[in-house]
């Protein structure tokens, strides 16, 4: 373990050192290049300092300081040299990026090792690592789109997307309301409830169960998204048709999972109810539904990501001039790609938050299930 840390940190530091000594191969502009090199130097220096910090013996504050140095330098890297074409995109530039990547990775390794060994508490520190990872991705994305001159109409830099997020907040909010509040939520609630109720109904009749389950299983494997144009045809262009798509997409996973969940109670648990001569409803409420909880939440979580995709896709087939799917498709047509990505970011955040809230509720409700009390999901 420690050995691997060393290798990573050494590689990263070497990479940074190399960045200083690599000569610029391409000098796009003779005058700008030396200036660009000059600007790069302190940044590479920061990376180096961070690397050396990681190489030295482990204490708690050192890696943190190193991390701050690393991020500081990385943030400056694409930003500060924006004007100097010679420095950006040159070998030294990529060298420092590689150094940055290796060193943040090393940081994550060390931090998780510290948590595992109990040197750092799980709560709080646990979220630093994924956040670091996300930030690293963003920085690499920014640096690569700029360094490799990726056309902004293909893939805008995160900074451009961020600007757009801030500037277009009212539009994004209106779209969010139209798609998420008006289409996704009602569709999700109706679809999940319907799936639950039908599952309970079906469960009472072995005949229905035998007939519906294979069909339900089959349906939940289908590209239901394909019915989006049909739903627009049937339910009109406003949110109703989107909600209908969401209902159709969420219904079957819920049906199948709930039916499976209702059978999850072990036979000994059921026998217990039988020895009490408990009625059907008593058994359902006190045993089978609680036992089905993890399955139901599983469906709720699956459905949370399906629902958003369904609503957005349905908007491609006709909508009022508002909505996330609408904005995305017209945005591409207008080459407002940063707005499109801002919209995607909103969708991803909304989706993750939706999922996260469900996961939290799940923790609360099915606290007793081994997968919950057994630690990490």
């Amino acid at each position, binding site marked *: 373990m420690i050995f691997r840390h060393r290798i990573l940190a050494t590689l990263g530091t070497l990479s940074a050192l190399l960045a200083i000594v690599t000569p610029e191969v391409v000098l796009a502009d003779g005058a700008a290049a030396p200036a660009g090199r000059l600007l790069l130097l302190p940044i590479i220096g920061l990376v180096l300092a961070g690397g050396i910090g990681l190489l030295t013996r482990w204490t708690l504050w050192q890696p943190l300081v190193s991390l701050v140095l690393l991020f500081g330098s990385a943030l400056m890297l694409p930003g500060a040299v924006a004007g100097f074409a010679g420095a950006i995109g040159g070998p030294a530039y990529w060298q420092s990026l590689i150094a940055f990547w290796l060193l943040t990775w090393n940081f994550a390794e060390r931090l998780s090792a510290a948590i595992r060994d109990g040197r750092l508490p799980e709560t709080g520190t646990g979220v630093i690592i994924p956040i670091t990872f996300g930030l690293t991705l963003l920085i690499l994305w920014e640096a690569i789109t700029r360094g490799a001159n990726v*056309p*902004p*109409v*293909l893939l805008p830099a995160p900074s451009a997307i961020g600007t757009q997020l801030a500037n277009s907040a009212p539009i994004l909010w209106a779209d969010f309301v139209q798609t998420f509040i008006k289409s996704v939520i009602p569709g999700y609630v109706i679809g999940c409830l319907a799936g639950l109720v039908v599952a309970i109904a079906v469960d009472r009749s072995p005949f229905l169960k035998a007939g519906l389950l294979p069909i339900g299983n089959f349906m939940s494997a289908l590209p239901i998204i394909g019915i989006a*144009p049909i739903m*627009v*045809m049937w339910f*009109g*262009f406003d949110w109703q048709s989107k909600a209908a798509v969401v209902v159709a997409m969420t219904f079957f996973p819920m049906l199948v999972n709930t039916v499976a969940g209702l059978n999850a109670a072990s036979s000994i648990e059921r026998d217990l109810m039988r020895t009490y001569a408990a009625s059907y409803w008593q058994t359902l409420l006190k045993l089978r539904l609680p036992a089905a909880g993890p399955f139901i939440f599983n469906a709720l979580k699956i459905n949370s990501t399906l629902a958003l995709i369904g609503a957005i896709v349905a*908007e*491609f*087939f*006709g*909508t*009022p*001039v508002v909505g996330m799917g*609408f904005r995305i*498709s*017209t945005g*591409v*047509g*207008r*080459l*407002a*790609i940063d707005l499109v990505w801002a919209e995607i970011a909103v969708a991803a955040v909304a989706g993750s938050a939706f999922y996260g809230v469900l996961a939290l509720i799940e923790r609360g409700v099915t606290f007793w299930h081994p997968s919950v009390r057994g630690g990490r999901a």
Partner: protein
Amino acid sequence: ADALTLQLKWVTQAQFAGYLVAKEKGFYDEEDIDLTILPGGPNIAPEQVIAGGGADIIVTWMAAGLAARDTGVPLVNIAQPFKRSGLMMICPKENNINTVADFPGHTLGVWFFGNEYPFFAWMNKEGIKTDGSPEGVTVLQQSFDIQPMIQGQADCISVMTYNEYGQALDAGYGPDNLTIFNYTEMGNDLLEDGLYVMEDTLDDPAKVDAYTRFVRASMKGWQYALDNPEEAAQIVVDSDETGAATLEHQLYMVGEVSKLVDANDAALDMTTYDRTVKALLDQQIIKAEPEGAYTTVVTDALK
């Protein structure tokens, strides 16, 4: 041979008969051009494709091209075979819309994805609000079909003379039960299917030469298509990889497209160009009068 890639604005159909026929008939080969034709689709923005380097030449509408130029994709019009617009708005008579003055309070179907500019320019000119307020109109992003009219979801819908209008005719609609607003006849037409390239490529004489040969072959293709509609329609059907195109419909389309295309003249019509620019400026879709958004080097060389 010079390899060129042409990105169409829409799926393979007779709207692009000239290019498809020219390729099938070997007109590009004659000009020593090795042409790849990429069909478009509802989510493919040709401007994005060319900016990313996925195509050399694209077919697009002038308004979308200028808007793209404004966002930093330096597109230049090199030829404009389509002289008139095929865009119309049709309203079933029972909706009691007879003139533009009847629009307020109604729902209108509009195509987006870069096709919305002519509509908004028109409404702008008429002073009708498009924000859904009672004194304005409600805009609906229309699917690329006539279902919203059949389903009664929109009071008026957008159609192309050469495509959806035909579908409306098939469905039993016609001039006697429709109010028709034809953009060209109203003088509101903006330039449609033109040929665009990236500005920097025009610095290279070899490229310009290749473009010239490409346009010459294409115009020959258009001429051939207009002269031989049946054969052209068949070629379109055969070129369609999706198998969706039907001969009957494509034949209708060739007939209608022939009313919009001038096969003898690829040059840009400056009156329509100016109208297009003005409309975009009025709506603030572009911020400044475009410079160098078209070039005549190719069409001049054709003469």
